[in-house]
C-alpha cells in the first residue's frame, strides 16, 4: 500500500503547478484550467484522507467539489464568452477595466 | 463568379461560409455565399456561371432547326419542355398551323416530362432533408418515363423530338399502351410518396413555416411556376395563356396560400397528379392524322416521299443545307415548364439563323427568391429552400 504522505505530496505538487500556471499564464481560459487543476489537487488530498481515515466523508467532499466546479465552469465560461464579445481578446492583461 | 460578401462596416466579424459549387445539396454547381451568425443565415448571395456554355451565342450561329438540340441541354431534366418552347416560338414567327395529332403528342410528352422532372425534384429535395429512400423510389419511377422517351425519340434524355412544324418521327406502334401502364400505375405510387412524407412529423417540422415568401414578394422577384403557386398566386400559363391546345384539356391548377417549403412541396405533388390526368386525356383522345404541318419549305418531308418525289428531295436539300427564312420580326413565346415560365425571345432578321435568341430560364428568376427565403433561417433550412425552388443549373447558366 502506498503511504498517505505520497498522495499528499502528489497533491501538493499538483497544487503548486496549478498555482504557478495561475500566476504566469496570460490566457484567461488557461488560467481557468489552472484553477481546475488546483481543485483537483485538493480533491486528491480529500480522497487520500478519506481512505486513510476509513470513512466516506472525504469522498462526499470531493463530490461536492465536483458539483461546485461544474457550476463555476458554467458561469466562468459564460463570463469569458461575454468578455470576448465586448473586448475581442482573451489576454487577462487587457481585461483590466471594470466597465465592459 | 467568385463573388464574396463585403463586410458591412461597423459590424462584428461574422463567419462567411462558401456553400458549393461542390456541395451535395446545391443541385449541381450552384454556389452560395452565406454570412452566418452561429448557424443562422444573415445574408446570402448566389454565385452562378460554373456551367455557362454560351447557348445564346451558339443559337446565333446555327439554323433554326439545329438550335433544337441545344435546348435539350439547358434544362436537362425537362428537355421536351425546352424543345416545345423553342419550336413554338419559331412556329409563332412563321405562323405555322400544327396538326392535332402532333399537338396532342406534344402535350402528352411534355406532361410526362413534367412528371419526370418533378420526380427528380422530389427525390433530391427529400434527400436534402435526409429522407434518402425517396430518392431511389423516384428514380425508379422516372426510369419508366425515360423509357417512353427512348421509345419515341431514341434518346432517354437529350430527346430533340419536337421539330418546327410537328414531331421528328411518327411515334412507334404500341407506345400508347406503355403510356397507359404508367398512367394506371402512377397515382398509386404518388400515394406511396405521400405516405412517406406528407404527414411525417419530421418532414412537417422541417418544411412548414420554412422559407416563407409572400405572394407580393414572389411576384416582385419574378418567381414563377410551382414556386409562385405555392405562395397562393393562381398563375399557370397553360390556363391563362394556353398554347399547344392546352385549352382543350381539363385539369386543375393546384395552389397553396402558405408560401413555405411545404406548400411548394404540396403543389408539386398535386401537379404530378394533374399532369397524369392530362396525359390520360391526351392518350385517350389522341387524334389520327399527320404529325407534321403542311409546309414543305419548312418541314422536312418524310423519307418515303423524299425518295420518290423530286420536289420533296429539293425541299429536303434546301432545308438541310440552308434552312428556312422566317419573316423579319420578333416574338416572345412562354410556356409553363416544370419550373415555371420558360420564355423564348426570338428575333429574326430574315436569315435562316436567329438574329438573337434569348431564353428566359425559370430557375434563373426563381433563384432570386432564395435570398428572401433564407434570410434569418438556419443552414439546414437553406438546404430545404434550395430544394424547394427546384433549380437546374444547366438552365440558369445556359
Amino acid at each position, binding site marked *: 500500500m502506498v503511504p498517505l504522505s505520497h498522495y499528499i505530496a502528489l497533491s501538493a505538487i499538483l497544487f503548486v503547478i496549478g498555482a504557478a500556471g495561475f500566476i504566469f499564464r496570460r490566457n484567461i481560459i488557461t488560467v481557468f484550467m489552472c484553477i481546475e487543476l488546483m481543485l483537483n489537487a485538493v480533491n486528491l488530498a480529500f480522497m487520500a484522507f478519506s481512505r486513510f481515515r476509513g470513512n466516506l466523508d472525504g469522498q462526499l467532499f470531493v463530490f461536492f467539489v465536483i458539483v461546485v466546479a461544474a457550476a463555476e465552469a458554467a458561469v466562468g465560461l459564460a463570463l469569458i464568452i461575454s468578455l470576448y464579445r465586448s473586448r475581442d481578446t482573451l489576454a487577462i492583461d487587457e481585461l483590466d477595466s471594470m466597465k465592459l | 463568379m467568385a463573388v464574396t460578401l463585403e463586410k458591412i462596416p461597423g459590424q462584428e466579424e461574422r463567419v462567411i*461560409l462558401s456553400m458549393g459549387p461542390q456541395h*451535395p*445539396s446545391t443541385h449541381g454547381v450552384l454556389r452560395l455565399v452565406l454570412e452566418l451568425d452561429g448557424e443562422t443565415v444573415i445574408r446570402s448571395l448566389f454565385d452562378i456561371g460554373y456551367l455557362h456554355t454560351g447557348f445564346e451565342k451558339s443559337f446565333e450561329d446555327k439554323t433554326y432547326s439545329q438550335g433544337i438540340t441545344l435546348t435539350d441541354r439547358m434544362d436537362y431534366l425537362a428537355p421536351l419542355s425546352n424543345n416545345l418552347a423553342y419550336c413554338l416560338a419559331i412556329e409563332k414567327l412563321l405562323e405555322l398551323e400544327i396538326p392535332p395529332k402532333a399537338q396532342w403528342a406534344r402535350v402528352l410528352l411534355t406532361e410526362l416530362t413534367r412528371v419526370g422532372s418533378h420526380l427528380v425534384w422530389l427525390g433530391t429535395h427529400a434527400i436534402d432533408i*435526409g*429522407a434518402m*429512400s425517396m430518392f*431511389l423510389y423516384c428514380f425508379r419511377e422516372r426510369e419508366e418515363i425515360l423509357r417512353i422517351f427512348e421509345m419515341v425519340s431514341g434518346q432517354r434524355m437529350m430527346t430533340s423530338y419536337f421539330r418546327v412544324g410537328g414531331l421528328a418521327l411518327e411515334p412507334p406502334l404500341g407506345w400508347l399502351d406503355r403510356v397507359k401502364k404508367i398512367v394506371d400505375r402512377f397515382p398509386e405510387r404518388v400515394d406511396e410518396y405521400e405516405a412517406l412524407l406528407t404527414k411525417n412529423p*419530421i418532414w412537417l417540422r*422541417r418544411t412548414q413555416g420554412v422559407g416563407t415568401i409572400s405572394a407580393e414578394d414572389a411576384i416582385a422577384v419574378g418567381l414563377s411556376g410551382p414556386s409562385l403557386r405555392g405562395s397562393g398566386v393562381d398563375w399557370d400559363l397553360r390556363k391563362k395563356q394556353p398554347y399547344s391546345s392546352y385549352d382543350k384539356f381539363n385539369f386543375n391548377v393546384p395552389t397553396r396560400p402558405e408560401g413555405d417549403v411545404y406548400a411548394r412541396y404540396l403543389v408539386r405533388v398535386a401537379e404530378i397528379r394533374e399532369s397524369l390526368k392530362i396525359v390520360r386525356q391526351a392518350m385517350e383522345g389522341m387524334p389520327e392524322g399527320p404529325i407534321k404541318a403542311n409546309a414543305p419549305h419548312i418541314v422536312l418531308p418524310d423519307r418515303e416521299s423524299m425518295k420518290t418525289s423530286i420536289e420533296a428531295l429539293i425541299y429536303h436539300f434546301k432545308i438541310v443545307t440552308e434552312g428556312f427564312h422566317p419573316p423579319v420580326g420578333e416574338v416572345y413565346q412562354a410556356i409553363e415548364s416544370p419550373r415555371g415560365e420558360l420564355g423564348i425571345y426570338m428575333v429574326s432578321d430574315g436569315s435562316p439563323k436567329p438574329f438573337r435568341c434569348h431564353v428566359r430560364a425559370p430557375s434563373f428568376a426563381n433563384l432570386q427568391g432564395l435570398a428572401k427565403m433564407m434570410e434569418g433561417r438556419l443552414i439546414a433550412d437553406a*438546404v430545404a429552400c434550395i430544394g424547394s425552388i427546384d433549380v437546374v443549373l444547366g438552365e440558369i447558366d445556359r
Partner: protein
Amino acid sequence: MALSSDTLFLLGVAVVKVVVVLLVLLTAIAYIVWLERKLVAHIQSRWGPYRVGPYGLMQPMADGLKFLFKEDIVPLEVDRFVYWLAPFLSFTLAMLTFAVIPFGGSFKLFGHEIYLQIADLNVGLLYIFAVTSLGVYSIALAGWSSNSKYPLFGGLRSSAQMISYELSLGLAVVGTLMISGSLSLRDIVNSQTGTWHLAGTNTFLPHWNIFVQPVGFIVYFIAAIAETNRIPFDLPEGETELVGGYHTEYSSFKFAMFFMAEYANMVTVSCIATLLFFGGWHGPVFGPAWLHVLLPVFWFALKVFCFLFFYIWTRGTLPRFRYDQLMAFGWKFLLPVALLNILATSFVVAWIGT
C-alpha cells in the same frame, strides 16, 4: 510475488476473452456495414453489394482493404497531432465499452466459474457512460483540428447534441436501476430472470424490464440514436448540409476509424438496451450442457440484432431533424419525460417496498 497456477489460468482466460471479444466485434462491425448496405438497398428496391463473394459477403473485406491502401490525404494547416488523435480516440473509446458488457451466463472450466464477460465492475453501467461521455472529444477535436468550416460546424453541433442527449440517456435508465438495485450489468440481467406473476398467476411474459419501463426504454432508445449520430439525428454528419460534418477532411484509414467507431457505438447501445430492458441473454434454454452455454449467447446476439435492424430501418425511412428542433426535442420533451419516469418509478418502488 509468485503467480499461482490459478492466477495464471485466470489471466490466460482473461486474455482469451479480450482477444475473442475484439475479433468477434470487429467482424461484427464489418458485417453490420454489409447488413446495413444490403437492408437499405432492399428497402430502396436495389440490390446492394453483390459482386464480391456470394451475396456480396466479401464486400466488408474489400472495403477494409480499400480503406487501408487509399492515399491518406492530410489537408494543409491542420493541427497534426489532434487531427491524428481524434480518430484513434474515437475508435479506442468505442472498443473500451465492451469491457464490461456481459454476453452470456457462465460455465465451469477446470473448477473455475468463467463468466462470459471481460470484467464485471460493480459500477459497470457508469463505466460505460463515462467512456461514452469521452467520445465527444473525438468528434469535437476532429472538427476543430481540420481547420475547415464544415467540420467545425459539425464538431460544434455534435458536442452540443451529445452533451444534451447524454442527460436523457443517463436518466432514462435510472428507472431500471431502481428496480434492480445495482449498477452491475450482470446483476441487472439476473434480476430479469423468470416470468411475470400477476395477481398470483403466471403470465408467461418474460420478467423483462421493458414491461415495467416502456417509457424509459423509448426515451433511452431515442437518446441512444442521437448519441450515435444516426438518422434522424445525424446532424453532425448531415451530408447534405455539412458535406460530411466532422469527418469531411478525413480520408483513408482515419476515416475508416470514425466509421468503425460509429458502428461499434451502435452495437454498444443495442447491447445496453438488450441488457437493461430485454433481459440480456435470457431466453428458452434446452438440450445438452454445451447448448446451455451457447444458447444464451445466441439469444443475446439475436436481441442485439433486432435493435441494429431497427437502426437501419429508421435510416431507410426517416428524414433528418433540424439542429434547433433537435435541441428543443432533447431538452423540452425527452428530458422532462425521463424525469417524470424516474419520479413515477420511485413512487411505485417505494410503495411496493412498504
